[in-house]
């Protein structure tokens, strides 16, 4: 069973080609990181996978089962509390369980607060909790750990790893932080060019266990991304 099959021939906005040929297949449970400069088309690609936009050439086959997504901006319902924002999603657990999940993300006290009354980093964590709550087959993460301090980011990485281990979900995630990519992904995809194509598709040199060691990550970072990019 494959976790995600992307075989994109092209995507353009109003005649302007943004994405070119991009093909890759993720195994079920595989975790891939998508790297690429700002404005290259990472979010666009995730949107195509999510099915928001069907106006493209090629085929994209997501796995059967639920999808979840952490958007680049939190997209919480401002008129529902953080816990409600999780609990009202079909397939998510109830309010009490949502509060527990939020507590794991360091949001115990903010669980019953409205999104606009907490910090942006807190909103982002709540949005990540929402995606982790639904037991998805495929989870798309668009810069999920941005705007977080190193300690909180590490806490969220652990939560993310734990959930992926338990659910066995396939994950496709974008980030600009190469160390973060190495700390999380089995595979690193890089897109570039105009229109953007897949310029590099590498397995991570680190096993899942090795990734937990910051020093190993740092070494792999130097090895893989030495060239000034």
């Amino acid at each position: 069973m494959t976790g995600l099959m992307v075989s994109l021939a092209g995507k353009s906005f109003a005649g302007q080609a943004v994405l070119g040929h991009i093909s890759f297949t993720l195994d079920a449970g595989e975790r891939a990181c998508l790297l690429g400069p700002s404005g290259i088309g990472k979010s666009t690609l995730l949107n195509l996978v999510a099915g928001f936009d069907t106006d493209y050439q090629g085929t994209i086959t997501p796995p059967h089962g639920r999808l979840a997504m952490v958007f680049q901006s939190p997209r919480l319902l401002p008129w529902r509390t953080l816990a409600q924002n999780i609990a009202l999603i079909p397939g998510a657990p109830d309010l009490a369980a949502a509060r527990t999940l939020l507590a794991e993300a360091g949001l115990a006290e903010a669980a019953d607060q409205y999104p606009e009354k907490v910090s942006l980093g807190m909103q982002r964590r709540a949005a990540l909790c929402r995606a982790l709550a639904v037991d998805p087959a495929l989870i798309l993460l668009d810069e999920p750990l941005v705007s977080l301090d190193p300690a909180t980011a590490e806490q969220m990485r652990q939560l993310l790893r734990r959930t992926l281990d338990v659910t066995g979900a396939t994950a496709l995630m974008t980030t600009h932080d190469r160390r973060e990519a190495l700390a999380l992904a089995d595979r690193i995809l890089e897109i570039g060019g105009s229109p953007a194509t897949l310029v590099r598709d590498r397995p991570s040199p680190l096993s899942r266990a090795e990734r937990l060691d910051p020093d190993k990550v740092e070494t792999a970072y130097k090895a893989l991304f030495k060239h000034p990019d």
Partner: protein
Amino acid sequence: MRADTSGSGARGALWPLFSLALLLVLWTGAAAWLQSDLLPGPGAVWQAFQREWQLGYLEDMLATLARVGAAFALAMSIGAALGIWLGMTPAADRLLWSWVIFFLNVPALVTIVLCYVWFGLTETAAVLAVAINKIPNVAATLREGARALSTDLAEMARLYRMPAIALLRHVVLPQLAPFFAAAARNGLALVWKIVLVVELLGRPNGVGFEIHSQFQLFDVAGIFAYALGFIAIVQAIEWLILAPWERAARRWRR
């Protein structure tokens, strides 16, 4: 940049009272200064009210309120459903929006008369005529709201496969709250005004019937007695129901 309609709690509740008292003072002053039957002061209106009270004020007011209530409920529910549907469904909008514009501009007289001649001089015809008049207004307002809905949240809801009911309740309606508030306030006022015409054209009772009779007698104090009675009720609805509801519905804003 945003108004918190009234201060907090009990102190806030005093503002409308103060504001209305001020209006009363201005009115009394203007009436005393003009000294004309055409702008009766509060005293004259109070006398007219007492006279009309003897003659069945309450029955007329209740009859009118029943019609207003029924027509309002009908128009808001159908109009909102129609407006939201058109705003969210381009195909439906292309096909039906011209129709809404059409019925929006059919003179009230036409709908009222046609309802009466088709359905007879009945309560049903009266309420239906008012509702038909008002539905396009509600639809036009809520369509604008539905067209301005956030794409970001819509995509989120779609991704997480929210069922239609939940989508409506958690995503769509909260965004439409200001449009609902506008439609409800304008709607109540418009329904009331059309009910007056409907009563004039074919009901043997109600405030519209009385106001028009007073007009034939050119008794402005009598007209005021009826108009102010309804306005008092609307003010009560505004401050006892709408304002607290709005405060609750805006709690999430920073």
